[in-house]
């Protein structure tokens, strides 16, 4: 009898809680939260407690499969890998390397993402590498890099506990980042004033000091409005603005037109509330901004992010304990996947592919000539595929057929692809289209690291063997790299991969598995003798000055009409996770939220003769689904909310694929819809 308690990191949200997997003779029997972990503190959310359930599910993929007509036939690893390489080579020869794209995954480890982008760049020769960050915080990376020079959370999770003011917007924190939400609760119940701005009433807003409900897609308006009040009432940090920021005057001019009255008209937030919120944020010395998809998933997401950053610059609430601008990253390793360079415009460590010296540096490091052409973002890549311009795709664990906007259109893309190879742990809506499907190991079956939302690099440890012949993705990437004839793909362990990653990415320079055995490290960690910095921008910005952005309110890409009078917003709930591949195979989670639903304001419901539990039909210009109605006062009049976890009524059949100009993130949060009784 061998009984193990394996310390590892949760595979769900970006909190990055640590827990022990209880293993008896290679069987997972339970989970024990790690009481010495600074994030979880011996606590977990319901998903964390169930994170072991799907791992040994009978439906796991166990053998490589190759398409033969409509059938998938069992294949050997050699057979499958050779097939992928020969197909890609053929297509590259015919259409050039940029006709191929690789999707990495924010569920995979840093090491794996490092290899996936290396596979695209060094082995295939294209910068067409991207992952689901495109769908969540692409606008954050773009926006905050502009404002501060770095796209990550400026402060750390434990700091929420000591804040005396929280400005939370576009984040249903208690449901989507429960352990961060817990810290916020602690702060609130210890007297901190929380301002929650959201079209829905959330578990957090219910205990918050102020709960404001803006009309979806009007964020820049109310944010600028707050900025104006702060300037008008001289509540801003003049010294900080003068010494640490740029473009204040221009900014001042832009926001001057956002009078409380105008803001109320645009966003529906009462003007006195807006003023109160502005004063509260400006006058608190430990004021933290936290936000998520509600801000980023808009056709003007990047601008909205910048405008939030403006508030911090204006008040100097940055570079100090319990302040800053804090994007709450959705995936367990979306931060790490970006850090590791699974982005079309960045090498590992946010080193631009367009910059000649960076290209040179990596050509030297990898011993291959690299493309200087910025690659295709995931969303654009799929559009091009639909137009037949992108020919081949290798996807590691992505599920665009559920997660991307306007699925009908995404389906076109997959139908048009000449060749599609996927690696995943389960069959998904996307793997249906695969020509080659590879069985991958999940988090509990491999070693590596995740970087959680507050930039902590946390170990993932192998607890049980992968099912059947499944391989960890890093091994798949290595084998593919070798077969493409590229050097530098024979790694024996994730530790070795991390060493190479650290050697090329300064922000990870100090990080190694030996150190992680004893401690949790935070990037930037530039030297082996440094713990890394919890708080960014202390004493100034590495780009010199913080940049005020001149963001103007613009209406969403799609506005309500006679036919589509309601605004549809999408998102997650506490119990399911993203496309449900894992959570829907966990009985306890499924039991809590078993079926697709649409939240509708009780007033609207009454008007439409819809009552709780009715089957309804929700339709937009793109499609139509039939979820169950959940009638509630907790959502603003005229707004609908549908979680996107449910394939049987996929919210993304409805969403608008309109993209943010810079970040190419789709506008998941706003589109025009109608509801009727089904």
């Amino acid at each position, binding site marked *: *009898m*061998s*009984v*193990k*308690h394996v*310390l590892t990191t949760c595979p769900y949200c970006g909190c990055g809680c*640590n827990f*022990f997997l*209880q293993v*008896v*003779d290679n*069987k997972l*029997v*339970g989970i*024990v*939260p*790690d*009481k*010495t*972990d600074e994030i979880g503190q*011996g*606590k*977990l*959310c*319901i998903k*964390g*407690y169930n994170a072991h359930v799907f791992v040994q599910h009978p439906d796991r993929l166990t053998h490589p499969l190759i398409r033969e007509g409509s059938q998938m036939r069992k294949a050997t690893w050699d057979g499958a890998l050779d097939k992928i390489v020969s197909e890609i080579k053929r297509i590259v020869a015919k259409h050039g390397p940029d006709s191929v794209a690789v999707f990495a995954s924010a569920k995979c480890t840093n090491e794996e993402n490092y290899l996936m982008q290396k596979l695209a760049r060094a082995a295939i020769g294209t910068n067409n590498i991207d992952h689901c960050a495109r769908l969540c915080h692409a606008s954050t990376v773009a926006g905050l890099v502009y404002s501060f020079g770095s796209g990550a959370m400026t402060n750390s999770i434990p700091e929420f506990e000591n804040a005396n003011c929280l400005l939370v917007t576009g984040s249903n924190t*208690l*449901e989507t980042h*429960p*352990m961060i*939400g*817990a810290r916020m*609760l*602690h702060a609130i*119940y210890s007297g901190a004033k929380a301002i929650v701005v959201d079209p829905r009433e959330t*578990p957090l807003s*219910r*205990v918050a000091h102020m709960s404001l409900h803006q009309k979806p897609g009007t964020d820049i308006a109310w944010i600028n409005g707050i900025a104006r009040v702060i300037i008008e009432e001289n509540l801003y940090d003049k010294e900080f603005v003068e010494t640490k920021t740029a473009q204040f005057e221009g900014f001042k001019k832009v926001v001057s037109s956002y009078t409380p009255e105008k803001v109320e008209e645009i966003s529906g937030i009462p003007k006195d509330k807006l003023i109160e919120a502005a004063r509260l944020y400006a006058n608190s010395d430990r004021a933290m901004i936290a936000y998520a998809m509600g801000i980023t998933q808009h056709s003007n997401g990047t601008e909205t992010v910048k405008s939030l950053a403006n508030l911090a610059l204006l008040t100097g609430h940055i570079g100090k304990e319990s302040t800053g601008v804090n994007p709450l990253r959705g995936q367990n390793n979306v931060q790490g996947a970006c850090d590791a360079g699974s982005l079309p415009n960045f090498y590992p460590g946010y080193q631009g592919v367009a910059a000649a010296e960076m290209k040179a540096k990596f050509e030297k490091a990898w011993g291959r000539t690299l493309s200087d052409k910025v690659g295709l973002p995931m969303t654009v890549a799929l559009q091009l595929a639909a137009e037949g311009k992108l020919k081949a795709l290798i996807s590691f664990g992505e599920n665009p057929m559920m997660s991307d906007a306007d699925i009908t259109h995404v389906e076109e893309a997959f139908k048009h692809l000449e060749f599609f190879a996927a690696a995943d742990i389960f069959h998904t809506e996307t793997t249906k289209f695969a020509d080659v499907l590879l069985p991958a190991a999940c988090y509990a079956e491999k070693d590596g690291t995740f970087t959680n939302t507050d930039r902590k690099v946390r*170990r993932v440890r192998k607890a049980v063997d992968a099912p059947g012949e499944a391989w960890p993705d890093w091994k798949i990437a290595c084998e593919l790299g070798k077969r493409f004839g590229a050097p530098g793909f024979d790694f024996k362990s994730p530790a070795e991969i991390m060493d190479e990653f650290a050697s090329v990415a300064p922000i990870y320079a100090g990080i190694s598995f030996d150190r992680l*055995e*004893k*401690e*949790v490290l935070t990037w930037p960690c530039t030297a082996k003798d440094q713990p890394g910095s919890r708080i960014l921008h202390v004493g100034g910005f590495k780009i010199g000055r913080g940049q005020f952005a001149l963001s103007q309110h613009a209406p969403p890409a799609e506005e309500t009409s006679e036919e589509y009078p309601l605004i549809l917003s999408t998102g997650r*709930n*506490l119990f399911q996770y993203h496309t449900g591949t894992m959570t829907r195979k966990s*009985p*306890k989670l499924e*039991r*809590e939220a078993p079926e697709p639903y649409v939240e509708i304001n009780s007033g609207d419901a009454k008007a439409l003769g819809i009552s709780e539990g009715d089957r309804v039909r929700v339709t937009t210009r793109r499609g139509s689904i039939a979820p169950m109605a959940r009638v509630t006062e907790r959502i603003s009049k005229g707004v609908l909310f549908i979680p996107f976890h449910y394939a049987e009524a996929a919210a993304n059949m409805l969403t608008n694929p309109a993209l943010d100009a810079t970040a190419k993130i789709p506008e998941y949060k706003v589109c025009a819809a109608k509801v009727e009784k089904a």
Partner: protein
Amino acid sequence: MAFDDYKADYLLVMRAEHGSVAPAFISKGEEIGDVRFDIPYQLITVLSRIYPQIPKGKIAVVVRKCDELALNELFKRGIIDGKRIFKIGLACDENIIDKCRCPDPVPSKVDIGEPKKGVAEDATVTRLRKMSPDERLKFWVRQFRKCNKCFGCTITCPVCFCENQCVLGERTLVAEKSIPPGLAFHLVRSFHMADKCIECGECERACPAEIPLLTFRKMVHADMKELYGFTPGDEKTVSPLLTTLEGEPLEDEKNVC
């Protein structure tokens, strides 16, 4: 600490690992390592997950007083076989005693640590008892409003053995209002625990929302004592909720409430 001291095949302790403190279920012959007692893991819960997988052999486990009582409740229900368990008594330190407001922190047999005096009362309980019902309700509503339905209080509880079958996950009793789950959730749980809870306080430690669950448990504990003079944690006595009135004062016809 060595196997021979306990003639056991397995040893369940807490030890330092990867810069954390971890529960460790060590088979005979394996390295025992750097054993720690400062972090209060609920080892009985840890054990109860593993136990069904271990068909035979004697298991030595480090137990605090509350763990001992928890074991008795498990023995009583035939969930764990007492003959297979060897208890290594651990006397709690002041820090933990205070955290648990624990009246009785000394195990029947102390092998580790110095026996320390217990804490007489839970300040919050006293405060709540003094309140008017309305104030008390306000207090609890404000607390329970934070509940995020993680089920930590049930999952980490050593005497909560319904496992995946807990009714709190069903829609029958706890209304579907997403989260927080409302008062019924906590009332039902407290009733179910009334004749089992041994006040180890793990539910409170495990609550991300920092709801004073142990305080609630202590109140119900007092109720059971007052009504039936019953205290959970004894291997022999049957729960009063399962016995008839034969020969009890309650048999009096006036017994209505």
